């Protein structure tokens, strides 16, 4: 045995020289544990001229260095990771092997697994010095011990910082003019759509919840932005939901638009159509229970939407006796029946422009501009 951990040589290079010299004398077996505690760079041996080209440590250095370089550069090279298997616990590169696997797991999103590799690592080995960085990255625990650690964490999390900045920009714009919020949101959405559509959608809904009932906000612009980014159907559904607790009448219109859009996309099943009809029917009943009668303009618009929806739906339900029975049994039909009556009233209201006879307590101005 050439070295042991009690000797603690101060310099890796000196120790390597001793190992090489003594191994050439045929001393066997060689204990590399002290070397493992001094090895600060897996490729270091490649640059030391006194190591004979045939020495097994040189091949191990190549394997450890290649794998370490691949995982830190993001090069997908399963072969180099496979080669790591040849480095056993007695290899001076074993701590670097564990570090490489930890970094690989981290980038694969397997944080716990990454931390597990540190449990196996000798505490005094150089790669273990990165444990604090991993705890910050994975557990969000602790603070960087020095500027280098801080810089490493910051650069790895550059995209996170970018996303936080996007959020801050929108939050700041929410406090300012409607036009600025719309422009900011449009720009932020543009950045987000190719990174994470769910996050973009979440932020869009988050903003809408704050502005949907505010006056002077360009709602139709926000609606069109949603259609462009998330498609018509998804946007109509979200708008229907956001209006659900604020303006039932508007919510019904959006549910009908949603249904029509799904029919146009040829993605609406009979079961979904039935659920939409149930929803609209239920909402309409809730609307009728409100103290104030809906305005004539609204009823006319609603009647038109229902007719269109049922007309789009009819080829879908053609021949489906069960579904036709369902429609007949729903009071939504009665909504349709109110249409001619309301249309008459609508005509009447045209004559009565300027009176408040059928005015709803809610303004239909915003609702109608959306459509």
């Amino acid at each position, binding site marked *: 045995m050439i070295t042991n951990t009690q000797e603690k040589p*101060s*310099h890796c*290079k000196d120790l390597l020289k001793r190992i090489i010299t003594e191994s050439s004398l045929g001393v066997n077996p060689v204990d590399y544990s002290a070397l493992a505690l001094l090895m*600060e*760079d897996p*490729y*270091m041996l*490649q*640059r030391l001229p006194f190591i004979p080209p045939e020495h097994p440590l040189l091949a191990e250095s190549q394997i450890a260095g290649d794998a*370490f*370089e691949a995982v*830190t*550069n*993001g090069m997908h090279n399963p072969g180099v990771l496979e080669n790591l298997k040849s480095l056993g616990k007695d290899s001076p590169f074993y701590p670097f092997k564990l570090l490489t696997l930890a*970094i690989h797991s*981290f*980038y694969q999103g397997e944080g716990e697994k990454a931390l597990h590799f540190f449990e196996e690592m000798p505490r005094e080995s*150089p*790669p273990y*010095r*990165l444990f604090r*960085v991993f705890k910050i*990255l994975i557990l969000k625990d602790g603070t960087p011990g*020095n500027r*280098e*650690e801080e*810089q*490493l964490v910051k*650069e*790895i*999390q550059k*995209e*996170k910082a970018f*996303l*936080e900045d996007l*959020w*801050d920009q929108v939050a700041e714009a929410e406090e300012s003019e409607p036009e600025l919020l719309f422009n900011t949101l449009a720009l932020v959405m543009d950045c987000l759509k190719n*990174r*994470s559509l*769910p*996050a973009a*959608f*979440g*932020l869009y*809904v*988050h903003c809408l919840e704050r502005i949907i009932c505010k006056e002077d906000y360009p709602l139709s612009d926000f609606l069109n932005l949603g259609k462009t980014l998330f498609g018509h159907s998804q946007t109509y*559904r*979200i708008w229907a*939901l*956001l209006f*659900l*607790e604020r303006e039932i009448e508007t919510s019904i219109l959006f549910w009908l638009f949603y249904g029509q859009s799904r029919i146009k996309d040829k993605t609406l099943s009979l*079961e*979904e159509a*039935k*659920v*939409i009809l*149930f*929803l609209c029917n*239920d909402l309409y009943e809730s609307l009728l229970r409100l103290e104030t009668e809906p305005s004539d303009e609204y009823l006319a618009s609603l009647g038109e939407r229902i007719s269109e929806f049922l007309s789009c739906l009819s080829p879908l339900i053609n021949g489906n006796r069960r579904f036709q029975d369902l429609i007949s049994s729903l009071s939504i039909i009665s909504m349709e029946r109110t249409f001619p009556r309301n249309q008459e009233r609508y005509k009447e209201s045209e004559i009565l422009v300027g009176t408040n006879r059928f005015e709803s307590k809610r303004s239909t101005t915003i609702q109608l501009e959306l459509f």
Partner: protein
Amino acid sequence: MKERFLERLVPLLTEQEREILKDLLSVPILSDKEDFVNQANPSPQYLGPGKWLRVIWIQDQEKNSKSSIRLHQECQEGIFE
């Protein structure tokens, strides 16, 4: 409102339709900035081996180990830099 919907409509629907209703009524909710960042699931940046190794080396420099500093200088001229 959504809960009331479910209460009223669920008994009238089949199991499949109930699932459809739940999907229709689902809204993505972002509670705060952290929630937003988590949903966006940012990918960690790849920085290459040098940045990782510097963290390993710097601790020796802090201990004022001359031999380590010399070694690091050699490494900085090496393959990773």
